[in-house]
């Protein structure tokens, strides 16, 4: 078997090729990490808002209030911000007050729940979901 060492030219060529290919390789690796991180954030945001939706379902519609709660997860520090379109919002929008005891067609309760992720001193909103929930009209 004829064995010999690499020549200096071969080594230099290999280093040149390595340095050229390292650029797209690094780009791909960085992008992969970002894609995974982003997907994990979306999954966590969905899980948190689903949890908030479950909390809303177990609460009487006329007892729903604006709420904020925090959760520490592997992807970071999260804060869920629930915004209920309540009587003060209705008044600000110039809409009539809802009298729970009266018979009639009432609008459902409007809920917005956003999952925000801590980024330094700021909170980045990852996902917001909105839905309506019926309120019992009373009899």
């Amino acid at each position: 078997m004829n064995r010999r060492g690499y020549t200096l030219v071969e080594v230099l060529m290999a280093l040149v090729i390595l340095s050229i290919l390292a650029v797209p390789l690094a780009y791909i690796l960085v992008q992969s990490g970002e894609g995974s991180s982003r997907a994990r954030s979306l999954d966590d945001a969905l899980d948190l808002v689903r949890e908030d939706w479950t909390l809303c379902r177990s609460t009487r519609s006329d007892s729903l209030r604006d709420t904020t709660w925090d959760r520490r997860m592997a992807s970071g520090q999260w804060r869920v911000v629930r915004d209920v379109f309540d009587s003060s919002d209705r008044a600000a929008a110039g809409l009539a007050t809802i009298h729970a005891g009266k018979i009639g067609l009432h609008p459902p309760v409007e809920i917005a729940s956003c999952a925000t992720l801590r980024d330094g001193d700021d909170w980045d909103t990852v996902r917001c979901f909105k839905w309506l929930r019926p309120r019992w009209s009373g009899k």
Partner: protein
Amino acid sequence: MVLAGMAVAIGLATLAWNRSWSRRTTSAHADLAWQAQLLAESGTACALQEAMARAGSPPAQTPQTPPNSTAPQPAQKPIVTIRDTTDTACVFHRGAPGEMSWDQPAGTQLLTIRATGTVLESGEPLETTMRSTWGGNPPVDPFSPAISLWDRNGTSLNLTGTVQGQVRVNFATAPPGTIKHKTGGIDQFVPTSIASDTAVAVARMNEAFRSTEASWNGCTFTPERPPDPDKDSLICTGEGATTVFDAPWAGDPWDAGRSRILFAEGRLELRGKLRLRGWTIYSQGTVVIQDDAEVSNTSIFAAGGVRIRDRASFSGQILSAGTVSLTEDARIAAPSFVACWPGKGRDSVPQFVLSNQARAEAYVVALGANARIGISRGARLRGVAVSGSSLRNEGRIEGLAVSVRLDCGHGEDNCSNGSFLRDRLPVDFAFPLGLPGSSGYRLVSWSTGE
């Protein structure tokens, strides 16, 4: 070797890149699908809100009205009263995350709602449909006995069949083995919103038959000539005309397609091995369901009575002016609600009849001075039977019988040879939404699909 190593490294990196970004796409799709489902749920909330407004509208009868004259009076009843709000009942005030829509409920007793939520995903609509059925939460006590009678002129009670459960009467003197009612009347078993449901149905029919979309002289649908897939509602006019869904007698059943609203000005016949699911049917004439037809999760408003026969089956809600009858091996499956009141012409008597081997699992209400519920020997009703006048049970009632009087065909005062088995009423039985004293709504069943 160096080059080969580099190629492997790049290959692995590309694979990782591909997997991570496709995972991100999957996560984004899951988010949008969830928002679409929330919109479908919001549409359901809107439909439920409208139904509750109707269920909460003024009662059909005053408490002083005698129990045997509980006929609805559609012309005098408000449909929906908007008193508290000046804005549109269903709207997102802080920007809608997509679109929602829902079918207008035909009746409000067992509320079957089909609602749709739509969001955009890469410019394409992503749609989720939610089907749900809702019932009421009535007070427990009036429904605890096996038999509840309201005949003020009653003097005796002769029950020769099996009775499991309490018997309550409001006779001048309670016969041995019975308990006297303390409070209330038969009205506590009659949903208050039947009249407004009727008014809504009649108004919708009148509007539909004047529409330019109407097909003159009825319609005949077969597997070869199915309903137009682009139409959400089918309007078949012509008073003497018959609208027919004619499925084959043998072979595979014919599914008539996605749920729609059907308006038939004359008689409607559903026959053969037909499948209808989630439809809303308004008919000025008689509705006949026969052969092996399977009609499920459907609301029927019929101004000329409903006949279910042969091996046909039904589940959902029936509001009928005139007789509702089941013969041979016909079935009504849970959850179901049936109400009938006096009609016009043939089959005008407000009666609910189970003959031969027929079975029904439903909350049944017959209203009017000549209202009657009849259960033949061999037939069975599981649920609640409420008659504004007489009830004749020769078969089996598994649940609660409520009537002014019990009839056994002998002219004798309050008698029956049938079975009354209160303990057989399922614990999850679906009560109607509009019962007086109902403390809210209850989800009976639901399903979603993209």
